[in-house]
C-alpha cells in the first residue's frame, strides 16, 4: 500500500504548507472566533433583552444562519461583500475586497450565530437572583452584565466555546471552494501539481486530526476541572 508512497514530497513542501497554509488557517480561525464571540455575545444580549424588536432581530439572524449550509453562505458573501463595500464607501462600482477579508467576514458573521446560542445558554445559566441582587445594589444594565453575568457566563461556557472553535478550525477548510491557500488549499495545490493526491490528503488529514484531537482532549480536561469546582 505504501510502496509508491512519496514521503519526500511532504518534507519538500512542508515549509509552504505550514508557513503559508497553516498560518492562513490559524489566523482565520482565531480572528473569526474572537469576532464571532463578540458579535455572538451582543446577539445573545439582544435576544434576551426583553425588547421585542431587538430580540426578534437577533432570533431571526441566528435562525437564518443556522439553517444554511456554510458553503452557500461563503458563496453569498463572496459576491455580496464587494457590493456592500461599494455601498459603504460610496464607490462607483462593486469594490473587490481581499480574499482573506472576504473569508474573515463570512466566518465571523456565520459563527456569530452559533456563538450567540452558546452565550445565550451561558447567560441563562447565571441564576436570576444574582441579576436581581446586582440591580438591588444600584448597578445599571451594563454593570450587571459586565461585572456579574458575563464573567460567569464565559466561565461556564468556556468548554463549549472552545469546542465550537475547534469546529470552526475544521470548517475553515471550506475556503477551498474559493481557491484560497489555507492548509487544505495548499495541500490540494501541491497534490494536483505533483500528482501526489494520496500523500497530500493523508498528510492533511493527519495534521488536522492531531490539532483537533489535542485541543479537544484539552477541552475534556478543562471540563472535568470546571465541573468539580461547581
Amino acid at each position, binding site marked *: 500500500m505504501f510502496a509508491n508512497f512519496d514521503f519526500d514530497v511532504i518534507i519538500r513542501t512542508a515549509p509552504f504548507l505550514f508557513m503559508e497554509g497553516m498560518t492562513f488557517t490559524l489566523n482565520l480561525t482565531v480572528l473569526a472566533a474572537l469576532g464571532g464571540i463578540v458579535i455572538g455575545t451582543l446577539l445573545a444580549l439582544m435576544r434576551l433583552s426583553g425588547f421585542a424588536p431587538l430580540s426578534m432581530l437577533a432570533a431571526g439572524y441566528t435562525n437564518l444562519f443556522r439553517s444554511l449550509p456554510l*458553503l452557500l453562505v461563503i458563496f453569498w458573501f463572496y459576491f455580496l461583500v464587494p*457590493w456592500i463595500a461599494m455601498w459603504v464607501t460610496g464607490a462607483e462600482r462593486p469594490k473587490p475586497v481581499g480574499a482573506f477579508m472576504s473569508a474573515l467576514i463570512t466566518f465571523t458573521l456565520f459563527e456569530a450565530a452559533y456563538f450567540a446560542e452558546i452565550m445565550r445558554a451561558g447567560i441563562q445559566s447565571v441564576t436570576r437572583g444574582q441579576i436581581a441582587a446586582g440591580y438591588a445594589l444600584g448597578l445599571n444594565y451594563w454593570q450587571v452584565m459586565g461585572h456579574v453575568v458575563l464573567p460567569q457566563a464565559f466561565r461556564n461556557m468556556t468548554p463549549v466555546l472552545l469546542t465550537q472553535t475547534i469546529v470552526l478550525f475544521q470548517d475553515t477548510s471550506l475556503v477551498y471552494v474559493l481557491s484560497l491557500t489555507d492548509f487544505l488549499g495548499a495541500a*490540494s495545490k501541491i497534490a494536483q501539481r505533483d500528482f501526489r*493526491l494520496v500523500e497530500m*490528503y493523508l498528510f492533511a*488529514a493527519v495534521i488536522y486530526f492531531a490539532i483537533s484531537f489535542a485541543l479537544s482532549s484539552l477541552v475534556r480536561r478543562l471540563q472535568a476541572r470546571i465541573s468539580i469546582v461547581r
Partner: protein
Amino acid sequence: MNYRWKWDIFFQPSPEGHGTYLDMLIVGLGWTIVTALLAWAIALVLGVVIGVLRTLPYKTADRIGFAYVELFRNIPLLVQIFLWYFVLPEVVPAEWGRWLKQIPNSPFWTTAIGIGFYMSSRVAEQVRAGVGSLPRGQRMAGLAIGLTLPQCYRHVILPMAMRIMMPSLTSDFLNTIKNTSIGLTIGLIELTSRARAVQEFTFQVFEAFTVATLMYLVLNMVVVFAMRWLERKIAVPGYVTGSR
C-alpha cells in the same frame, strides 16, 4: 452602479437543454434530499452501534467506540470526502480501485457515505449521552427480570434513550442536510452547486442564491415540523422528555 434584478430568469429555459433555471434548482434540491436521507440512514445505524459500544460494561468496546468517534470527529468533513473519493481507490488493491473508480454516480455515493460516517460519530455521542441520562434503575430492572444484556438494550434502554435524544437527533439531521453541500467539491449536483451553475450561466448571482436560500429554509422547516410531530407521536405518556 446598481444591481439589476431579473427574477424572470427562473422561467427561462436553461442551457442544459431541458427545463428552466428553476427546474435546475429543483433537481438540485432533490439530490440534496436523497443524499441527506442516505447519509442519515448510515449515520443512524453506525451511530447507534458505536454509541452502544461506548455504554457497554466492557473496556475494550468503550475504547473501540472512543477511537472511532475521535477519528471521524477530528478530521474536517471536506478532507474526509477527499479521502473517500481520491485516496481510497489508490490505497486498496488495484482491482478494487478500478472497480471503485467506475461506479456510476460516484459523487453521490461518496458524499452520502462520507457524510454518513462523519455524522455517525456525532450520533454516537448523542446515543452515549442519551443512554447515560437514563436512571441506572432501568437497566438494573431490565436485567433483574431476566433479560439478557442485548434484550435489555433492545426493549428497555434504547427505546427510552432514543426518545430522549429526539431534539438533538433533529439538529443532527439538519446538519446532515446542510453538509450535503460539500458534495459539490467532487461534482455532486446538489442545491448549492446548482445555484452556482445558475449564477454562472445567467450572471444573476443574488436571484440564484436567494431562491436556493429559501429552498433550504423551507426544507429546514419541514424537517423541524416532521420531527416534532414524530416526537409527539412516539412520546411515552407521563414521561416528560427534553423537548417542548
